């Protein structure tokens, strides 16, 4: 049977180094997006948790709190919960890829590890931002006006989602067993969430826990979203948000902290990625 292309054809000229790395980033991102798009059930399930928090817990607490609409306060926290779901999913897929060998397949490709990690994180961030958008669509229900400021919120959510995915990737390259990974993530996520001011104002916590709140990077992520949220329903009377020596850190600094955390997680994960053994 005649073939049009000879399998022994001379190796093609490979594109330049940087272009190659960028293509690797893109294809890993694309893989995550394709997988995300094919698993509609997972998408739906991941939205159930945040919506339960917002509509049931939020509505119930609003009733007992009298005046204030607690759902407005809860909204940034619920967005925050929604965008962290893909971090877990990407992390699990890495642990899974390690077990299935797909990870090794990627690691023998002539591509920098940083490019692999960046592609994975961007994939997770895309999925996370999508979840965020789904929840954000409910803004009107909780009394948040649909103002152009929401675009800023989306950008913040994208950053937070990227950071979460980077930390999920970092955890996944350090923890090799899928059971341990799930336990560790679940154990880590609950305190990170409760000590971030996402669900209730952290100002009511005793001193030693307040320190934990200050040290929790998620505190600043939640606070940034809360401060950007239009309509003024996101604050509760008496809640000041995180305080540094009596003043509130600027919004850009808060976001900078989150970005720094992402950079740190990507760097360490890339380093650890190289050591497969």
């Amino acid at each position, binding site marked *: 049977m005649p073939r*049009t292309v000879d*399998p022994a054809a001379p190796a093609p000229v490979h594109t330049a180094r940087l272009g190659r790395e960028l293509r690797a980033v893109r294809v890993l991102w694309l893989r995550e997006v394709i997988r995300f798009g094919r698993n509609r059930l997972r998408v739906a399930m991941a939205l159930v948790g945040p919506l339960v928090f917002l509509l049931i817990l939020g509505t119930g607490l609003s009733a007992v709190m009298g005046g204030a609409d607690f759902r407005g306060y809860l909204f940034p926290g619920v967005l925050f919960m929604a965008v962290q779901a893909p971090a877990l999913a990407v992390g699990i897929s890495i642990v899974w890829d390690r077990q299935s060998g797909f990870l090794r*397949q*990627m690691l023998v490709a002539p591509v920098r590890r940083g490019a692999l990690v960046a592609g994975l994180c961007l994939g997770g961030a895309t999925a996370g931002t999508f979840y965020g958008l789904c929840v954000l669509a409910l803004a009107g229900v909780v009394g948040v006006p649909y103002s152009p400021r929401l675009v800023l919120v989306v950008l913040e959510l994208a950053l937070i989602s990227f950071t979460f995915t980077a930390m999920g990737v970092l955890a996944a390259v350090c923890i090799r067993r899928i059971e341990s990974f799930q336990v560790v993530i679940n154990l880590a996520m609950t305190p990170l969430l409760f000590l971030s001011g996402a669900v209730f104002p952290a100002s009511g916590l005793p001193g030693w826990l307040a320190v934990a709140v200050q040290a929790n990077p998620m505190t600043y992520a939640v606070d940034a979203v809360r401060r950007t949220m239009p309509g003024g329903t996101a604050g509760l009377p008496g809640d000041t948000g995180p305080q540094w020596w009596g003043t509130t850190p600027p919004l850009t600094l808060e976001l900078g902290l989150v970005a720094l955390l992402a950079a740190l997680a990507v760097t360490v994960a890339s380093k650890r990625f190289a050591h497969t053994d």
Partner: protein
Amino acid sequence: MTDDAVVRATGLGKDYGARTAVDGVDLEVAPGQVFGFLGPNGAGKSTTIGMLCTVIRPTRGRAEVAGHDVLRSPDEVRQNIGLLFQESTLDADLTAVENLRFQAELYGLPRRHARTRIDTMLDLVDLADRRDDPVRLFSGGMCRRLEIARGLLHTPKVLFLDEPTTGLDAQTRVAIWEHLHRMREEAGLTVFLTTHHLSEAENCDRIAIIDRGGVVAEGPPAALKAVVGTDLVTLRTGDDQAALRAVRTRFGLDGDVGAEGLRIRAANGAHLVPRLCAELTVPVHSVVVTEPTLDEVFLHHTGRTIREPGPRTAGPAVGSRS
């Protein structure tokens, strides 16, 4: 010939803590060869392949693949090798063609070239009609074929296969080998594979036998078999020890008694059998004559058959490690 070796390892070794997984492996593979790396599970095969493929960092020694040092220029090595692991490493959520496209992107193949190349490779492994099916729906053999296509997509000089036919039925195994031989002929590819299937090792041009982290014998299968040279006669008798004494005094042959019965080495086993039966006074239950196989070669060099894991510290029962 040694100058153009496409895979070369010198004193390559790997320690995991205090445990030595690979202990000073020396290897040379000429271009266009099918080179088999034969050994029992845990002998250090996968670790060695991992080091040659830049996935595992060697503790000592050097290795060059396609003329590039695995430690100093890992990217050049990666560009020149294809790799198939023991387990399937396809993305089950993606279709056949998406899996190949993923690989093409990862290896930076020019897009226009990649498209024709993917079609050619799918055609070559007879999966052209299943190109848009998710890999989830593929059988084990189809997955392996797709992985071969993927491993060869970027036109590597060496294809590494770690236990390529594990878990496949005999028919599929033969088909995979046909594909590999075809690739070798059409693309002048060098194939480096590990296996613990002796039948598979016989498909190779040269094999190296590895045991407990070191190469114990190396050469073409026929030459290795010639080293053993003799047939193995295995007897089950009423009293193996008495039979062994009789064989020693009357035939001047040596043997040993093991779990499988009395084993005797003889130049021509078939001729020995009638005389054995006639002259042995103890009842003979069964006689098996085995021509030298790679299993024998393995036994000869390691003192163990490849199937019995055996205690790691057991002394050699037959022959000695050279």
